[in-house]
């Protein structure tokens, strides 16, 4: 579930508010999005993929995590490279190559083509 919005990184572009398929966020009074309906989060990572400043972190668990969880420790997430890792891996953002162009996976059968998605 969505666990972190970094007010320090956020540039209040509203992108995450717009793209979240299940309408989890509201724009806060200072423009920084607020997680208003976390129970509706479907853990799809789309908000993260679309945030231009890597200000969001979606934990893989489909239930909310306690306050002391790693998912709320921005410094830890930055150090470990987890913050913004999805956007990096799919190659979104200035100067990056779309991951789709490099997506040559293994073949699932000896005669089959490589998996590319």
């Amino acid at each position: 579930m969505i666990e972190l919005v970094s007010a320090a990184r956020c540039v209040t572009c509203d992108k995450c508010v717009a793209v979240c398929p299940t309408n989890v966020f509201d724009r806060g009074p200072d423009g920084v999005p607020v997680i208003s309906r976390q129970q509706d989060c479907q853990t799809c990572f789309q908000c993260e993929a679309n945030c231009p400043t890597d200000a969001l972190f979606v934990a893989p668990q489909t239930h909310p995590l306690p306050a002391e969880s790693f998912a709320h420790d921005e410094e830890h997430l930055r150090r470990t490279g987890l913050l913004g890792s999805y956007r990096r891996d799919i190659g979104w953002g200035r100067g990056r190559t779309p991951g789709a162009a490099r997506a040559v996976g293994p073949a699932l059968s000896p005669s089959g083509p490589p998996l590319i998605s």
Partner: protein
Amino acid sequence: MTLELDADVLVVGGGPAATWAALKAAEDGASVVLADKGYCGTSGATASGGTGVWYVPPEPESREKAMASREGLGGYLADRRWMARVLDETYDRVNELAEVARYPFPVGPDGAPLRNGLQGPEYMRRQRIRVRRAGVRILDHSPVTELLTTEDGVVAGAAGHQRQADRAFRVRSGAVVLATGGCAFLSKALGCDVNTGDGALFAAEVGAELSGMEFSNAYGIAPEHTSVTKTAFYNYATFYRADGSVLDGAGSQRGRSVIARTLLASEKVFCKLDRADEAARKAMRLAQPNFFLTFDRLGVDPFTQPFAVTLLAEGTVRGTGGIRIVDDGCATTVPGLYAAGDAATRELICGGFTGGGSHNAAWAMSSGSWSGRAAARFARALGPSAAQRPVRAAGGAGLRPTGATSSVSAAEVVSAVQAEVLPYDKNYLRHGDVLRTALGRLDGTWSAVRSGLRAEGAELVRARQAAAMVAHARWMYTSALARSESRGMAKRLDFPDLDPAQHFRITSGGLDEVWARPQEVAA
């Protein structure tokens, strides 16, 4: 204040089926409105999951092999003419993605381009851009809640609620394409919580029929307590018991039921992708970055460390049941109404076997394109006055309760449905006695919804989702009971064998009275 719009074609949904429908209707000269519950570009199963695509070059031998590959698994309910059409259309549409949409397909080790799959976020981001450039008006965060019909029952638009603007909207149109996806019962399978079977409810309310609803018990493997039901790489897995011994017979393609049985016995099932060599491990990361999100964030190395797994219901998303299609343009039995993608039945190309892995994606592109073109033609034939026809709203359950008091909440209804459709011992390992009991409870839930589920504004959307889920579950179990044999994914513990005498499809429908009946398969 209600937002009022007119269009030749209204497309309901925002995934691949909807975007192809909108594009092809617009290319045909129609004015098009596309209304999505979420955000067109990120919403739906494909946008988050990504898909392998049934992309087969037009060489007779490869095509023959492709068509034969799932015929037996699907219980011989697919139709070769439809398979051939879908293979042709998909080949053209994928090439269009490469040449017109500039989707960055990778190049294989031999230098040849690879076009047999699409990364979800990249594919759907580009579809959104194309739809906008085609002049389609996109309404995001605008779930449709009901259809509009003329006096004589022709579909003439839809109404809904814009949840961010918090206002009602109404689109009057010459034709409507339902591309709302399947129904995964809010199981939190990847990208599927927007897929609550709304389109099937809307269709049934105007008298349309469903088909193949017994093929609705797809379950995807995911690490325990997570969402990513990407399953291809479990082909490299060994499954273990808690004590470290190998779980015999467990597997991804065959042997998922062994996993279900073990989980039902309250035992955990563990997994390691220990059959992948170093080269495969590296390549897997490139092919499916979303698959590894979970492991990297849990701090688990899936190749060397065992992790607990679960099975999440994907209902008719990776099942094949949906709204019945009656012609090559994906018309339903109701004039003015078309269905595409997972909202429609995929039996025509998959029979009773899952459409996941390739067929569903091909179907979404093909049926989307066909329905868009056919809807544009239907609207054009009506002429410019189509939007002036007097209309009435067709929605019932959750919108216009028959009782005077509100006696049940959407959340209660959702829990009640989930209790009957998520458990493996009800929906996956099906037995007639269990299905009958579950169906009895679901009928009771429907009565409660019909008389006492009432909501307004944004809550109306939740009420309609809940109603759609109950309706879906009842068509599923009524159809499953109508098939006293095991065929495709519709397996019955009490009828474990295929019965050649039941080589038919099962059509279903109805709301207060649900029905199911055999339908001959075209020769």
